């Protein structure tokens, strides 16, 4: 029950675009996780701090993307579990660096170069979109942020801006159309996957 409440608070924090709840969570468990990570995995303090940061980011993204709707454990257990796996992956990566024989290239495993190329195209498209997003005015960026990231309804946004829902819909459409034109213009031959 307690974990539900904590998750609710974090969900509300994401919905209101307020990161301070996550920052508090970060400050609350950071030292304990570093001690836990150092003792359990033998990783350095810096590595444990990085893993913990990544765990908090993962929690944030999972809540934002609605991948995490309910928890059967405490938030702390959830974060520590993610953090622990991040550290275990790091250890695995380190051992791969020191032991080339286990690398798939040396062992003769085939690599799907086609999918790598498509992935690269998708990444380029996202990179281009990110660059174009920088050209938007703060109002335009704010509108997209609230609708797509904070998952606010058009009505809520319209009420706050003091305009009609239809006007907000049109504004959003205009921004998207502008962006789409700029992005597609540079990627006519794009054949990538989503």
């Amino acid at each position, binding site marked *: 029950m307690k974990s539900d409440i904590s998750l609710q608070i974090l969900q509300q924090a994401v919905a209101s675009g307020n990161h301070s709840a996550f920052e508090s969570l970060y400050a609350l468990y950071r030292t304990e996780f570093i001690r836990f990570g150092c003792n359990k995995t033998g990783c350095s303090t810096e590595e444990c701090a990085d893993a913990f940061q990544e765990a908090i980011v993962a929690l944030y993204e999972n809540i934002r993307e609605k991948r995490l709707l309910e928890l059967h454990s405490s938030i702390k257990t959830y974060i520590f579990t993610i953090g622990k796996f991040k550290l275990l992956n790091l250890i695995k990566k380190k051992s791969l660096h020191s032991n080339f024989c286990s690398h798939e290239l040396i062992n003769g495993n085939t690599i799907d170069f086609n999918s790598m190329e498509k992935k690269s195209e998708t990444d380029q498209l996202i990179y281009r979109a990110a660059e174009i997003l920088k050209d938007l005015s703060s109002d335009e960026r704010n509108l997209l942020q609230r609708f*797509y990231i904070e998952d606010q309804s058009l009505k809520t946004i319209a009420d706050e801006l003091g305009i009609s829902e239809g006007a907000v819909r049109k504004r959003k459409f205009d921004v998207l159309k502008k962006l*789409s034109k700029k*992005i597609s213009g540079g990627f006519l031959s794009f054949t990538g996957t*989503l």
Partner: protein
Amino acid sequence: MIDEYSDIEKIEQFLLGKMGAEEAAIFENRIAEDASLRKELFAFDAILKALRNHDSELFKQKLRDREMLIANRPISFFRKYRFAMAASLLLLLSIGAAIFVFSARTPLHEKLVVLYKPIEPGLPVLMDNSDSRSISDAMSLFQDEKFEESLLLFDGLLAEKPANDTLLFFDALCNFELEKYSEAQKKLEMVLSCENSVWIEKSEWWLALSFLSQNEKAKSRLLLQKIEAEKGHLFNEKAGQLLVEDYFLSN
């Protein structure tokens, strides 16, 4: 314009997972056939991903700032030296406890002996030419507080000169320091029997302390009263002070 609106909203619903399964299947077919719609979909998907990446980056930056704050936070004096302070406190407590235990367990008469025992510097000059070497070695060991070795040499010298008051006095003091009080008393009484000895007043004092060490209150009091009564005695004043200690005032 209406079609464009409609398409954008359909793409939006499709990518945000807000489209029903049947409608999504129909829409997927449209995407496969319509290159321009597919292009719009890719662009829209890239925008969404870029928006999410941007938001994640902002969030990560906040955590990095927080991490910098935590990592660079000045450590307070008390936090930095908490282990050293704890160790010092523990040491002080141990010393205090040791003093307490010593005070609680050491009987009063023994405490008085420690308090009133004079420092005997020994002799700086050689007393006798024939035995000068042995006496000098014994005295040197006595001054170094090596009482066992010193006692061996004094005992050896006394075997040759059993009535030598100087040898008897320092032999007695070695015995006293080694807590062989009976032997010390015997030697001190022998010094007291030597007329005109320079060690008589000191021997009386050490004998009184020796009785005190063995909790022989009456004998000690008697000797101290004698010392106190003698004007000009080396330990006249000290004897007066010792006699008014609680130990002697109580029966």
